[in-house]
């Protein structure tokens, strides 16, 4: 499959700014510039930003109007008899969908139509609850969210909408948590697969970075939630969280290396790093291991989706490996190393209470190293500072966590300071070397 152009507005805007410089220096011809302009659709960049703003405004307006309509109806709800109530519920839903369809496909106001359809999906959820009230339908609280998610999923595919897809993630996650904790913990194992199968292709088809990334976030949340529900304990939550984080990071590296939907890569890598960093940081505290409850050892179904996530992550890295350059390979290995360290922390807990704390701290330091290294090599300030802040937080946390002598603390701080200084000097040297190469 041939690599595709990066569709990110930020990237295209930066590239557009560079075109005159490249032409002026003789690097790019006018004909080449014209081809790039056509390929990256530079003329649409301004329009896309305006469209996004319009979509946000219309969605907000629809939410406010929908909320107003619901409040107005609620104010008179008790005075209305059952038949008109039901008619009102169905009528409101259809009115939003008809108006949404008209604006989206017929009148040239697609963003307004999209917003009205999204509002219709919210009304659909409210209607399920209200119909259950009118006819005294009792049942599990999470059932509403499950049914809501199914209806909204169909609509998100029908209108190719990322925002209704996000609503599916939220509602289905709520359903899964309730369902798994209501004696269905084994059956709930299918949830991560369903989420991936139903939403990732949609995000791919409509090229939605937000939906794609949030679907991975849904998977990252679902895996530890399943482990907790099945084990009735939080003992293996870290491994499940790390599996989701690793998957996201690895798939992100795949997109970046292969150029397939390249714009999906960076958000996924950042999400994966954030998930692993959160897990490693939380479990770097010794008290997390002292209170650890491993739960029922016979409940291992959560390992199926977690194992599949890891296998998919490894497959993504293996597939992208030939196309990765040196630094990308080091980052991919960093992802694997962090995941392995986090997984090693758990069995080490059975032998020693101190070892897992050391391992998770080490994993956290590797994550910080990857972030700082990536920030330097890719000249991305945000990730560089995120890594620096992370390591600083880690050091400060250990400072307050352990009651050691001030002398030891002073040695630790001086060492950290020296290491930071060495890193700064290395960074400066790197910049000088780069400048020399450019000149």
């Amino acid at each position, binding site marked *: 499959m041939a690599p595709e152009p990066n569709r990110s507005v930020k990237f295209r805007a930066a590239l557009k700014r560079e075109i005159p410089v490249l032409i002026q220096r003789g690097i790019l011809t006018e004909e080449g510039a014209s081809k790039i302009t056509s390929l990256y659709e530079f003329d649409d960049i301004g329009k896309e930003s305006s469209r996004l703003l319009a979509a946000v405004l219309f969605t907000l307006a629809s939410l406010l109007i929908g909320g107003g309509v619901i409040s107005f109806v609620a104010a008179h*709800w*008790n005075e209305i008899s*059952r038949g008109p109530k039901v008619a009102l*519920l*169905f009528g409101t*839903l*259809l009115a939003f*969908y008809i108006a949404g*369809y008209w604006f989206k*496909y017929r009148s040239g106001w697609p963003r307004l139509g999209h917003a009205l359809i999204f509002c219709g999906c919210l009304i*659909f959820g409210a*209607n*399920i609850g209200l*119909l*259950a*009230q*009118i*006819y*005294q*339908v*009792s*049942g599990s609280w999470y059932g509403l969210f499950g*049914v809501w998610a*199914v*209806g909204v999923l*169909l*609509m998100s*595919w*029908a*209108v190719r909408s990322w925002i209704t897809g996000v609503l599916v993630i939220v509602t289905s996650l709520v359903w899964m948590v309730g369902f798994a904790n209501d*004696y269905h913990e084994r059956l709930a194992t299918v949830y991560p697969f369903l989420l991936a199968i139903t939403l990732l292709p949609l995000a791919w088809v409509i090229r939605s970075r937000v939906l794609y990334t949030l679907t991975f976030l849904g998977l990252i949340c679902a895996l530890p939630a399943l482990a907790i529900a099945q084990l009735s304990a939080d003992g293996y939550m870290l491994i499940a969280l790390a599996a989701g984080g690793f998957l996201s990071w690895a798939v992100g590296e795949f997109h970046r290396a292969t150029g397939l939907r390249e714009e999906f890569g960076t958000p996924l890598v950042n999400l994966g790093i954030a998930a692993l960093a959160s897990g490693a940081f939380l479990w770097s505290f010794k008290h997390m291991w002292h209170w650890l409850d491993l739960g029922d050892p016979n409940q291992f179904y959560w390992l199926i989706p977690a194992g599949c996530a890891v296998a998919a992550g490894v497959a993504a890295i293996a597939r992208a490996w030939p196309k990765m350059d040196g630094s990308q390979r080091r980052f991919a290995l960093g992802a694997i190393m962090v995941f392995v360290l986090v997984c090693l922390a758990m069995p080490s807990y059975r032998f020693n209470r101190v070892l897992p704390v050391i391992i998770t701290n080490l994993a956290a330091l590797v994550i910080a190293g990857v972030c700082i290294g990536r920030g330097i090599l890719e000249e991305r300030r945000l990730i560089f500072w995120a890594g620096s802040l992370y390591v600083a937080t880690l050091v400060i946390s250990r400072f307050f966590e352990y009651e050691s002598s001030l002398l030891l603390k002073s040695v630790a701080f001086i060492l950290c300071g020296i290491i930071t200084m060495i890193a700064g000097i290395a960074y400066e040297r790197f910049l000088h070397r780069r400048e020399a190469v450019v000149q």
Partner: protein
Amino acid sequence: MNRRTLFFLLAVAAQILILAAVPAQKIYTRATGKSVMLKIRPVDPYNILSGYYVTLNYEITDPSSFPGAKDVSGNLVYAIIEKGSDGVWHPVSLTNSFPANLPENRLAIRGRYNYWRTTYGIEEFFIPEDKRDEIEKGLRENRDQARAEIKVDSKGNAALVRLLIGDHVYDN
């Protein structure tokens, strides 16, 4: 009709069907079922109202109300109830299969059994916001006189119709 219009219509139709399916069983049971009056058991006075609904406990909710309930296995159960001289229906037995040829004064209600509690889908009564205080007070003062009118269809499905607390009747 183009494909996107067709898909949109199908999605809307599916949502309408889902909405219709939510109360369908209750509507059918209300229309075709036999009226039954059940005694409400005193509920935890500190947890009568959960949000906008009353949590109801019946005699038949407690499996120990049925002789031989320990022999029941599995999740799906049928509670056999009998009409008493006071007009209220009382528990007789709990079984795993739908009983055939019940006498006129007996009925079977389909429920879900989980060892300490059996639920029949009639445990929550949704109430309007302005009646919350009144119902809560009524339930506290008439803990032994509260009744629920339900309907039971030919398959044993139950639907909650109204709540009777003292002299008041609450019908949503």
